[in-house]
């Protein structure tokens, strides 16, 4: 479990960075609405973390198939849940940004599209998990799916720019290289804090699941007498 001190520090850090994003950070020049462009320092870390979560999910899925340890399945699931959360946050902040800067909430920018596709994958992952009742089967099948979706998404992210550009000429490709120093500092500070929150929420989620499992086991033991279970051997 995360150290109490670290938790408090994280809270203060994130609060501090958020305030700084409004009070210290200068408005972004070159954008149509310089004040609201600040949202980019929140948007980019969320986007990065949703991809990180996807990778974490793939890794734990792989581990599960090798070890069949139920903990790794819980870990994969927790990562997917967080990934979905951050994907939604990234999409919303990105959409708000686009709305203010370019007047339309959606632009089929390759990066936007990647995030939405990732959300589709997460959604499919949860639908699959919901469809299988038996725990080990659920873990096995969702891990297999995650390991198929992962290379597919990698491919998607790779080919999207080449395909989307010619299908829909776009001028909204958002490049981070043009950011001023203050923005970069704020952005990466927020990222650090958000990463800490990610780890925190991840562990919390695991604790909840382990507690649920223990509760279930205890109630099972109450209702199933031992003698019914063993088999006689010749």
């Amino acid at each position, binding site marked *: 479990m995360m150290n109490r001190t670290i938790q408090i520090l994280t809270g203060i850090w994130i609060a501090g960075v958020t305030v700084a994003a409004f009070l210290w950070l200068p408005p972004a020049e070159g954008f149509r609405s310089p004040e609201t462009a600040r949202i980019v320092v929140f948007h980019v870390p969320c986007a990065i973390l949703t991809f990180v979560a996807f990778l974490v999910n793939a890794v734990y899925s792989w581990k599960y*198939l090798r070890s069949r340890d139920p903990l790794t399945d819980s870990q994969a699931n927790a990562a997917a849940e967080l990934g979905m959360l951050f994907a939604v946050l990234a999409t919303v902040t990105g959409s708000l940004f686009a709305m203010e800067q370019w007047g339309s909430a959606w632009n089929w920018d390759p990066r936007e599209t990647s995030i939405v*596709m990732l959300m*589709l*994958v997460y*959604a*499919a992952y949860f*639908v*699959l998990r919901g*469809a*299988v009742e038996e725990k080990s*089967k659920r873990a*096995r*099948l969702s*891990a*297999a*799916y995650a*390991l*198929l*979706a992962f*290379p*597919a*998404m990698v*491919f*998607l992210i790779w*080919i*999207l720019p*080449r*395909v989307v550009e*010619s*299908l829909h000429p776009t001028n909204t490709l958002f490049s981070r290289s043009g950011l001023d120093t203050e923005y970069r500092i704020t952005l990466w500070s927020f990222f650090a804090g958000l990463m800490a929150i990610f780890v925190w929420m991840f562990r919390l989620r695991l604790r909840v699941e382990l507690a649920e499992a223990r509760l279930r086991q205890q109630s099972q033991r109450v209702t199933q007498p031992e003698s019914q279970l063993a088999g006689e051997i010749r």
Partner: protein
Amino acid sequence: MNRSSSWANEAVAVFAKDWLLELRTRVALGAVVLFAVTSVVASGFALAPPSGVPAEVKAALLWVVIFFAAVAGLSRVFVVEEETRTADALRLAVSPAGVFAGKLAFNTVLMWTLCAITVPLYLLLLEAPLRNVSLLVVVVALGSTALACATTAVGAIVAKATMRGALFGVLAFPVALPPLLVAIHATKAAWLSDSAWRVAAGDLQVLAGFMLVIVPASVLVFEHIWSE
């Protein structure tokens, strides 16, 4: 115990058996072709006259129809084994690699059959440009094969998760999206571009590359899907 049952031989046996079953019951073929023909006719009707519709839209629409028609039938090859309870006998007789290869081959041929019927009909009803027909054939063949490769393992997952294939579209779409987008792009090039082959060459390479990645990935995870 000298048996010559390499996975390739097993795959041929599975493929032949599945097609024999399919020709006798026509469930997958029926669903797939019926859906495709209905969609094409509906599209043609809705968009009449088709001359005003840009080629990009026609390219995208063609593959949307192909994709959803495929979803109607591509999980069938695994679902039927679970529904009719023949999966156990199959598992006892054939290695997982043999099962996967045989079913993948089945799905590929199913896709080719679907396209052979759908594409000419589409070209006709939606007045798609008849340029670079040879390139179009290659794109359709490669693209539909890539779709089969992307979705066969997913079909196996769905069959194990629930006996009905209702889940299949949801799960298959993200995995099928890369080849789908590339196929649309290449189709559009075949219809619009003057140097179509050069433009599409990159797309064809991506399709091939995709298959080279997704098939081994599928083979790797298939054992975990198929065995309990």
